[in-house]
């Protein structure tokens, strides 16, 4: 609902060719107080953001939204989590929601789970993560080092230590891998 309002409002902006290659997203709040508080939280966490007027369809009079770099969505969510109430984060252009499709490939001794551009591979025998691959954001090589060699049940979640959209996609794959592993454990042990 909110997204539809935002999108229709922004359509005019895009038609006016303001910038159709934007990597920006909007964080939408219920109150100005929350928006200002969120700006401080993001900036104190080292992030970049800008207070802007929300799309016209959502304005109640004196409102603020935060313009952010969408690539850094996980880090921004982490900075705001449990500290300030917000309605959601929405891309200004393109798809409204993160890609949800997950694919599973089975090998003799391993299972690979793919979410978007990210893959995680674990051993069928004991749930150890043996590889991660794909992606291009700077937290991905770091997450590879942090995850590989650890059991799915003990490894840190990519969304908890990553910063970027690639880490969110890896987290989706991780979540599915963990679910598959726990399902296998419950049927075989």
């Amino acid at each position, binding site marked *: 609902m909110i997204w539809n309002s935002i999108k229709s409002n922004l359509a005019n902006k895009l038609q006016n060719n303001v910038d159709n290659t934007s990597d920006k997203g909007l964080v939408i709040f219920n109150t100005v107080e929350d928006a200002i508080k969120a700006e401080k939280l993001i900036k104190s966490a080292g992030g970049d953001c800008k207070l802007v007027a929300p799309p016209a369809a959502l304005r109640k009079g004196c409102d603020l939204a935060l313009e952010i770099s*969408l*690539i850094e969505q996980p880090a921004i969510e982490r900075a705001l989590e449990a500290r300030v109430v917000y309605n959601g984060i929405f891309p200004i252009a393109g798809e409204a929601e993160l890609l949800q499709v997950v694919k599973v490939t089975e090998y003799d001794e391993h299972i690979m789970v793919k979410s*978007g551009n990210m893959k995680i591979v674990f051993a069928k025998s004991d749930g150890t993560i043996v590889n991660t691959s794909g992606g291009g954001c700077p937290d991905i090589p770091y997450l590879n080092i942090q995850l590989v060699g650890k059991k799915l049940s003990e490894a840190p979640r990519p969304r908890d230590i990553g910063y970027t959209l690639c880490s969110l996609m890896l987290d989706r794959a991780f979540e599915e891998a963990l679910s598959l592993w726990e399902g296998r454990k419950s049927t075989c042990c």
Partner: protein
Amino acid sequence: MLLIAGIIPDNDFPLTMGEVRFSDDGNSLIVNGLSIPCSQGTAAMVSAALAVTEYLGIDAPHALLAGDTGSGTGSRRIYNYLIENVEKLAPKVLALHYCLPILGLIKQLNIALKKCRCKPILIGDAGSMYAVKAAGLAPDFDLFTPDASELAFLADPDAIHPAYIKRHLFEGEIVNAPEFITRAYEIKGAAKVLLVKGSVDYIAVEGKIIEKIDEPNIPELECIGGTGDTITGMVSAFSFAGLELTQAAIISAKANRTAGKLAHVTPASRVGEIVRNLPLVFQENLCCWSEIKHIN
């Protein structure tokens, strides 16, 4: 100069630029006295490029590196260094790799590149490729090396990152690669040459597929972090050696697969096993695949 720019997953790693070499045991890279393990990402890419230049007996790659575990601090240092220095450095080949996609900085870098007296051969992969495409600069680049899901991103005119591609594009990413290649060129989301890495590797020029490579078929390679990086490293180095980009891409795709076969890789293998086998792959195949003779 072949210059490869990207991040190292260690926040304490300083901004550094220099010629790379392998450590004495061959398991790490050395740049300006700093040791870097051959792991997924730019380290794997540089390692594969160095394997090529060592085999051919030509100048080793230079690497521009900075520590970054995701916050973007190191990425910004790399962009800014290039913006300030690329004209003076005048690389013959510039390969941009793992970095936070920052549209404003990639646009500034593109302006700086246009000031170079001799425009480098520009290669984009990973986060740098995301930034170039999202900024609308893809046609200014000579080569992109996406995997199948990244190709879907290049074919989606609105996507700013592969995480936000349209669902139907992702679902069709394997079978529809030729269609997506056409579409990526139509929307100006592709570089002049595309090397699409996957179960079938496609090489396309200005929208036309000129080569498909599917042998040897090693499905386990997709599992191994860094096996796409090694292809990009090799194609950068072969291009630096003077090969046409298309020929460099074909050889690199074949070499990666063959190295995987020689290494008997499993889904649990590490990318270093691929890199260690590259000299043998070159020795046994390079003459057949190209006019290149063993120089060493």
